C-alpha cells in the first residue's frame, strides 16, 4: 500500500505512520494472543502507538506470514495441553476422548499434528489442566465416565 506514507498518526497524534517491517513483532492473531511475525511484511504502522493500517493486499500479506506460525504454535500448545491432561489424570487417549466427547482416534491425530484443534477444545483442555481431578469429578456429573473416577 503506497497511499499512506509518512502521515502524522491519526490515533495518537504524536507519531508518524509509515511502512515498517513487522518481522520480529508479536501480534494478536485469530483467537491467539501472541503470534510472532516470522517473515518480512511491510505494514503502515505508527512509530509511537504501534497502530497499523491495512488494505486488502496488506491483510493478505500479513495473514500469509502469520498463518503458518499460528498453526504450528496452536498445534504445539494443544499437544502440550493434551499431554499434561493425560499425565495428570493417568488415563489413556481413548479415555480422554470419552471424557471430552471426541471421536475415537481424534486425540491421536491431534498429538501427531494431523489435525488442528478447534478453539473450544483447546481452551477446555487448558481449563481442565488447571485442576484435573476437580474437572474429572465435575465431568462425571454429565458424562458416563464413572469408571475413570474409580481408577
Amino acid at each position, binding site marked *: 500500500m503506497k497511499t499512506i506514507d509518512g502521515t502524522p498518526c491519526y490515533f495518537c497524534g504524536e507519531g508518524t505512520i509509515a511502512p515498517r517491517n513487522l518481522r520480529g513483532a508479536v501480534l494478536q492473531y485469530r483467537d491467539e494472543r501472541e503470534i510472532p511475525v516470522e517473515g518480512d511484511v511491510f505494514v503502515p504502522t505508527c512509530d509511537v502507538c504501534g497502530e497499523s493500517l491495512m488494505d486488502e493486499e496488506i491483510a493478505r500479506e500479513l*495473514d500469509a506470514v502469520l498463518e503458518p506460525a499460528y498453526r504450528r504454535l496452536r498445534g504445539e500448545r494443544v499437544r502440550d495441553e493434551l499431554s499434561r491432561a493425560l499425565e495428570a489424570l493417568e488415563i489413556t487417549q481413548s479415555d480422554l476422548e470419552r471424557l471430552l466427547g471426541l471421536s475415537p482416534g481424534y486425540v491421536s491425530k491431534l498429538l501427531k499434528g494431523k489435525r488442528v484443534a478447534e478453539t473450544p477444545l483447546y481452551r477446555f483442555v487448558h481449563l481442565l489442566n488447571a485442576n484435573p481431578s476437580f474437572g474429572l469429578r465435575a465431568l462425571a456429573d454429565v458424562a458416563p465416565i464413572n469408571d475413570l473416577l474409580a481408577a
Partner: protein
Amino acid sequence: MQGAAGARHPLADVRACLADPRRTVVARTTAAQMIAAHFGWDYGGAAAFAKEVVRGLAEENFHRRTTMADGTPADEYGVVRDGISWYVKLFITGNPPRLLIVSCHLPQWDIPTPAGIVTCTQRGLRKR
C-alpha cells in the same frame, strides 16, 4: 448523541471509497484484530467483514461526531448486524479520498442512534 449535527462524512462518499479496494484501509488493533478475535478469523476476513459492516450503515445508525487524536474529524455509528451490536468509527481523508475504518468492534457502552439504542449487552437494538 451530541446535538442535531449529522455525519461529517456522507455515507455516499463512504460507499464510493468502499467500491475501490485501494481507497479503504482498516485499523488493525481497534477493528481487524477485534473482529478476528471475536470470530477466530484471519486479518483478511476480518478486514472484509469491517467493510461489509460499514457498507451496511444507514443514516439512522449515526451516533455522533468525534475527532481523532490529531484533530481529524470522524463519525461514530452503532449498528446491529445478525443480532450482534457493533460500534463503528470512520473518517475520510486525503486526495483522492480514502476511507479509514478506525473502529469496528463490540460496543463497550449503549449507543443511542435514531434507529434506537444499540446495546452493549448484545441484546441488539432497543427502541426508545
